């Protein structure tokens, strides 16, 4: 009787290996032309996005998938990198109207932008599905609205148990996720303090995951309080040390939102020329995140940190 030993296939788990690299290295290694890029709003992965803008001539085009986004997606849109966005919300939050997004959708400036709309929870459930290896998730959102009518990927069916309508959303498996978090060890165990939105499920859905963090800590520190680990190492490809890496936005327990800076930026984003000048100064004109921070001013960043620490710091669990 014949026999032929089974070949053993490789799983998706990333190894517990040294994963620290620069933003430049991580973006070069994982973000390629026509990449399907996942991103979420808590916290803002500014250090990684700025680096993508610096490498835009190489990257050329990405398709974005977000739940909500404020600012980061529009930096990429304004820089001419985005062909399509799958989204729940893309606007300016407290900084107001997102003219970059409007120009792209309404006028194709700097390039046409295709939009695929979901509700926030509908968009979030796409990553919930992918994070568990499922082809779809049901939701009780989006029903009755016109969101499914303009987005054929959302399928309204009668559930086979109660015969009541549910709206299915398909799993989203981004090629790469870019995430900003509180801290990580060098093999990629990541902790997100405070509210972190969909960061957890996004990391579980993407084929490759780049996480920038405020602090690198030892694995021994991770092991002291494993309940705080939100993204275990096996999802993570690269850890980028980027202190203040979410500025102008906030990082829970680290520093406060720099509203003065954000409002000023959005004022400049009102025109294409203003946007171009802004990224020329702050992104293209700086060679890396440290230079950006110097341009903003570490004294200013430090004051934002003190402002946050006045109100909250993580500490003893008694």
């Amino acid at each position: 009787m014949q026999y032929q030993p089974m070949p053993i296939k490789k799983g998706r788990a990333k190894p517990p290996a040294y994963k620290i690299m620069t933003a430049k290295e991580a973006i070069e290694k994982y973000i390629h032309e026509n990449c399907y890029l996942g991103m979420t709003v808590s916290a803002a992965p500014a250090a990684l996005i700025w680096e993508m803008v610096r490498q835009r001539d190489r990257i050329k085009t990405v398709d974005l998938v977000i739940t909500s986004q404020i600012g980061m997606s529009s930096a990429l849109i304004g820089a001419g990198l985005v062909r399509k966005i799958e989204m729940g919300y893309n606007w300016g939050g407290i900084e107001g109207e997102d003219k970059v997004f409007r120009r792209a959708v309404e006028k194709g400036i700097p390039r046409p932008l295709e939009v695929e709309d979901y509700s926030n929870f509908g968009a979030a459930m796409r990553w919930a599905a992918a994070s568990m290896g499922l082809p779809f998730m049901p939701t009780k959102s989006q029903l009755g609205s016109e969101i499914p009518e303009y987005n054929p990927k959302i399928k309204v069916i009668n559930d086979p148990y109660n015969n009541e309508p549910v709206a299915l959303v398909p799993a989203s498996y981004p090629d790469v996720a870019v995430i900003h978090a509180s801290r990580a060890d060098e093999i990629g165990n990541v902790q997100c303090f405070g509210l972190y939105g969909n960061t957890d499920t996004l990391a579980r859905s993407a084929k490759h995951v780049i996480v920038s963090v405020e602090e690198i800590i030892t694995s021994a520190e991770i092991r002291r309080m494993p309940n705080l680990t939100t993204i275990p190492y096996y999802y993570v490809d690269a850890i980028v040390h980027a202190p203040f890496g979410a500025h102008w936005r906030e990082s829970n327990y680290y520093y406060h939102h720099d509203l003065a800076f954000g409002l000023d930026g959005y004022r400049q984003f009102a025109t294409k020329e203003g946007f171009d000048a802004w990224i020329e100064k702050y992104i293209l004109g700086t060679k890396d995140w440290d230079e950006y921070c110097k341009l903003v001013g570490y004294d200013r960043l430090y004051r934002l940190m003190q402002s946050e620490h006045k109100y909250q710091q993580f500490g003893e669990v008694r």
Partner: protein
Amino acid sequence: MSNYTRDYSMPELMAVTAAREIKDGELAFIGVGMPLMAATVAKFSHAPNFNMMVEYGAMGPAPLRLPMCVDCAVNNERAYFAGSQREVMGAQQAGFVDVACISGAQIDKYGNLNSTVIGDYHAPKVRLAGSGGANDLASSAGRTIIMLRQDGRNFVNKVDYLTSPGYLSGPGARQKAGLVGNGPAAVITTMGVYRFDAETCEMYLEKIHPGIDLKDIKKAVQWDLAISPHLTETELPTEEQIMIMRTLDPLAVYLGTGRQTLAGDFEAFMAMFENSYHPMVKLMRSKGMI
């Protein structure tokens, strides 16, 4: 109780009116901006045991400062829970959220909202933010409070894009669509307060803001608006309610021109925190909250 005041702005009147929709002990889903101010007024006055959820994963915060966004670190400050969006959004889909504040650019007589596009979806005149959490809350929250500017053109016969369901096409339509929540309870605008007829599901005018002319309201609504036979004037804010809002947000970032003031002015921004810290501490102490 403190006395009514006439020293208020229209956004302040709207926030206070929304605050009055929130009952003590309730769990509410709140976005930043005007809903946040409404929630704070409620919490600091008639509803101390009310708690808010914030979309990106926080519940029950008790901050000493003004949150900047739904994912802001401030929402985590002395919260009962912080973590994932799944928790708060899952809870609301499962029926745990009593009340939610939402908004939109257009509304129709059934309380359906549009926050996606003005004009054609594929060639929009104005592209807007998209649903965000509005559709989710409109779908599943126990009831919704809708807050929007009434600009004369946005109370329309048909919204350009139905982002967030009100009563859809009328009686029974939400149930037929499979929606969990009970739909809009009130619409609070720059002109008045509207509610919905239990039988027809149509919006009617319940209260009119001080100084607003009923004729102007009718002109600002495209359909033949029903008026409550008990139409009254909107209750004025109290001195205390105004004090609460101005203590938390002294520059009127949310209810006035604060954002223009702060754009590009880091020192003014830092000073805002410095100057509001002690008044906030004092206010929360007086309420027994710290």
